[in-house]
């Protein structure tokens, strides 16, 4: 293996590239209604994808926790509190051994 400091330098540069490249590349894409629609749809698609993968990888506890997060958001419109409550549901159910 190469020296540790070299590994960390390279990994750090790779992480930096990922953080900057998408942002900087957008400079060269001309604005258009299509691009606008694509950028607006991306966050929703990613959030939905993260949720779907967690549901697929998990079981009853994960489904109940994320279901609680969605239901509480719909009821209260407070997304942050609902998400924290969803995590608490998971921790509680796991403490009960489910």
């Amino acid at each position, binding site marked *: 293996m190469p020296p540790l400091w070299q590994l960390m330098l390279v*990994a750090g540069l790779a992480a930096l590239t990922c953080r900057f490249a998408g942002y900087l590349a*957008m400079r060269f894409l001309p604005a258009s209604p299509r691009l606008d629609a694509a950028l607006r749809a991306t966050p929703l698609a990613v*959030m939905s*994808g993260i*949720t779907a993968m967690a549901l697929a990888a998990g079981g009853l506890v994960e489904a109940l926790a994320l279901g609680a997060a969605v239901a509480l958001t719909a009821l209260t419109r407070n997304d942050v509190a609902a998400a924290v409550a969803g995590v608490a*549901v998971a921790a509680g159910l796991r403490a009960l051994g489910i």
Partner: protein
Amino acid sequence: MTRAPFTWAGFRRGLRMGLALSFPILIYGLAFGMVAAQVQIGWATALGMSVTIFSGSAQLALVSLMQGGTATLWTAAATVLVINARYLLFGATLRPWLSAAGPSRALPSLLLLGDANWIATMRAAEKGEEDRAYLAGTGVLLMTGWLTGTLIGAVFGSVLPDPRALGADLMLPAFAASMMTVMVRSRAALVPVAVGAAAALVVAQQAGHAWGIVGAGVAGAVVAALTVRPAGKA
């Protein structure tokens, strides 16, 4: 062009959101620190990785590469690039909003970008947040939580409870699900939701979780670009 606001007030609004996100991030940092300790990576190295990479998924992948003893500079770079490819999408989607702050403020803000505060910032921007310091505000506490967790996990790993028991693995999905729910305001918004979920499941099964996120974002973007109606409402 007049610059968008970048003030303490916006930074503080970000901090408030970051506070909610930072506890689960701290727990996730604990998990990383514990893994690093298990494979005999010292606390200083673990902390160094958390500062320079600042991405749990990429760091865990890198640690497993180092554990196998097969790490080269190429495989290390490729691992981080692949796992963090989703940040290309994050940066691209932030551009229209964040670039109004000017590059000297936008680029440093991106150093503090993570999954959770990307979601939170996109949500805030959609809700009408004008102050571009919001992103940095959310990020500072994420970074603080991440480093604190890494350090505690790496030093005291053997005596800590399992982060899973605290629900730390569900933090990001729960925030994603909740913020998605408030952002769906029309039936048309269900299209990217459905496309993203389907693409993530298919891609993740073939290529793993990190590509699942990329697949969801790309599929959602492509479908939206192809189906946009001229001067229509989204």
